[in-house]
């Protein structure tokens, strides 16, 4: 390991800020997700309410403590990073502390690191004399993975240092944050992005990257596979393009780990135990994911024309049970077999 670490030397071209000037060298490769991360808050798609508030802060208004919550890939991290950059410009480094789930954020860190950062006093002018906001910003990304004890410690710091520090907490589920904190923050829910907006954004990226998407039909597939999660859609597009050299509907399904609809139908139509055993063995050997199958199955079952309400009911109930067990780490083979039996019984007794 030591040797492994030593071989690298810190090269001078490290700073991303200089990469723009060195046009001869190719830019450090960036995944599209990073490359097209919104640079300013005006680039944020949807999420009008947050953008509105942030815009007011940029034009001199006061920034409240913020709590962003919502599903992945809806722009939470991007929004605050863009706002921070616009607020502080070149002094972002001194004024912003970003901590995420990968950083140590136990109670000790909150007490020491965050507190001492929060206590630093800051002026309302930059080193070069231009004005800037008279506060610092602490971003706690992925805050739902902080312990309650750490959150409690955070709450005290928040209370005490309001004059000089603003906090922005980001999480998927607001219920994981203790009420004393949520009540001190302006809460913003990030909704899954609207279909047409995702398509528009994807189109822009495709044009910029020179990806041929034909009549755009595959973009619908991309949106369909990603459920309003733009990160997922962008990653899928890029992977597809890089791996296959083109973007196709089947390709998108493969790179996102979806189960082909054909298999979902086959599973839903099994007639006897033998068939089921074979299906499950093959399904798992081909490395498809059981939890993904269940997810797609539950959507298919609800809309399936050939099933009676009772059948739908029986199957859906079992899907719920099995998916819960899978989440706890239950074996895929067992759960698929169990659910399969229920499907067989339902199919035989309409």
């Amino acid at each position, binding site marked *: 390991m030591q*040797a492994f670490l030593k071989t690298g030397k810190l090269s001078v071209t490290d700073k991303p800020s200089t990469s723009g000037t060195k046009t001869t060298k190719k830019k450090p490769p960036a995944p599209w997700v990073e490359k097209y991360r919104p640079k300013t808050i005006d680039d944020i798609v949807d999420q009008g309410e947050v953008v509105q508030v942030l815009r007011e802060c940029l034009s001199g208004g006061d920034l409240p403590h913020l709590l962003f919550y919502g599903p992945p890939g809806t722009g939470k991290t991007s929004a605050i990073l863009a706002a921070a950059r616009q607020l502080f410009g070149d002094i972002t480094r001194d004024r912003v502390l970003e901590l*995420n*789930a990968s950083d140590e954020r136990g109670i000790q860190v909150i007490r020491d690191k965050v507190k001492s950062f929060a206590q630093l006093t800051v002026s309302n002018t930059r080193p070069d004399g231009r004005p800037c906001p008279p506060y610092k910003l602490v971003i706690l990304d992925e805050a739902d993975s902080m312990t309650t004890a750490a959150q409690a410690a955070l709450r005290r710091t928040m209370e005490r240092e309001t004059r000089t520090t603003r906090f922005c907490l980001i999480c998927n589920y607001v219920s994981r944050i203790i009420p004393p904190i949520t009540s001190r923050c302006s809460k913003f829910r990030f909704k899954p992005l609207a279909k047409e907006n995702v398509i528009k954004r994807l189109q822009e990226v495709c044009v910029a990257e020179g990806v041929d998407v034909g009549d755009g039909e595959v973009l619908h597939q991309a949106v369909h596979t990603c459920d309003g999660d733009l990160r997922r859609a962008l990653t899928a597009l890029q992977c597809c393009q890089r791996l296959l050299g083109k973007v196709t509907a089947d390709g998108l399904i493969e790179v996102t780990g979806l189960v082909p609809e054909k298999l979902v139908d086959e599973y839903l139509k099994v007639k006897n135990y033998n068939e089921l055993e074979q299906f499950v063995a093959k399904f798992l050997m*081909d490395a498809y994911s059981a939890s993904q199958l269940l997810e797609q199955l539950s959507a298919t079952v609800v809309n399936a024309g050939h099933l009676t309400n009772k059948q739908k009911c029986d199957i859906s109930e079992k899907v719920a049970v099995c998916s819960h067990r899978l989440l706890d780490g239950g074996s895929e083979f067992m759960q698929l*077999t169990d659910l399969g039996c229920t499907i067989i019984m339902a199919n035989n007794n309409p």
Partner: protein
Amino acid sequence: MSLWVDKHRPKDLMKLDFHKDQALRLKNLVQQSDFPHLLVYGPSGAGKKTRIMCLLRELYGSGAERLRQETMHFTTPSNKKIEIMTVSSNYHIEVNPTDVGIHDRVVIMDLVKNVAQTHQIDSSGQREFKVVILNEVDDLTKDAQHALRRTMEKYVATCRLILIANSISRVIPAIRSRCLTIRVPAPTENEIATVLHTVCKKEGLSLPSELAMRIAKCADRNLRRALLMCEACKVQKYPFTSDQKVPEPDWQQFIREIASMILTEQSPKKLGEVRQKLYELIIHGIPPDMIFSGLLCELVRNCDMSMKCQVANHAAEYEHRMRLGNKPIFHLEAFVAKFMAIYKKFVEESLGDAF
């Protein structure tokens, strides 16, 4: 002398024996400048690792094959010292974070940060990033998986992750949406047979096709197992004959015996005997979930559909409980007892019907 599995492991993407189109795509991927994080998944023995080592060679040249083993030390926030084995070259490092149990998060974070911060090999012709390979990511704690999320974005300029899993069912969606997921299906029986032929040819042996096919059938689409079996066959008897015995893993035989014990008699006494046998399996390191699925397969053979359904239901339920608890034997035994009860009732009823 190394085993055939290691000796004849392909080193070049283009020399991989199956999923050739995927190999070609990976080769193209390497040529692009924006190499993404990868999540490679498939059943064991499907050749995930071989594929990844080939990929590394494609990325960095043969330097990636000069491996060394080292022990690394980490300190948890609670000041506990932990150590972990790593395998690395100048360009990559590989660990099994699950070796340190619940402390996996610390290992991953320290490792990725170290790698990302010590920065890349000089950019003259080389890659700007190094690779961290994490094994068994589906068994990482949720804590560790969550910690990976932003890390993957933050250090992407200097560090790429290659995550390996048996299945993506237990990989959180947030990680999946940050990776190029590469599915590696197990090779088919025909593909396995072909590989067996190739390897035997390299060894200067002649392998009858029937034997190759029989080995392939026994191996459960696991190439590693097939090669080990084939080598074992060679030790047992050479020249090969098409009808020679293929040594099966004895635990499968063992499970079959347990199943027939259960089917012959359903009583507390028998249950006690079965327990001894189950203990033996566990002591020999057979994963309890494999025992469970093995038992289910054997036991339902003679049941009618509604009973199959009941048995599968209970198996799934008890196996799930086993995951939550920490003594597998309890749950295996509970399942056996349950099965005995259902089966006994079934037999008695059908006997009653007969008279």
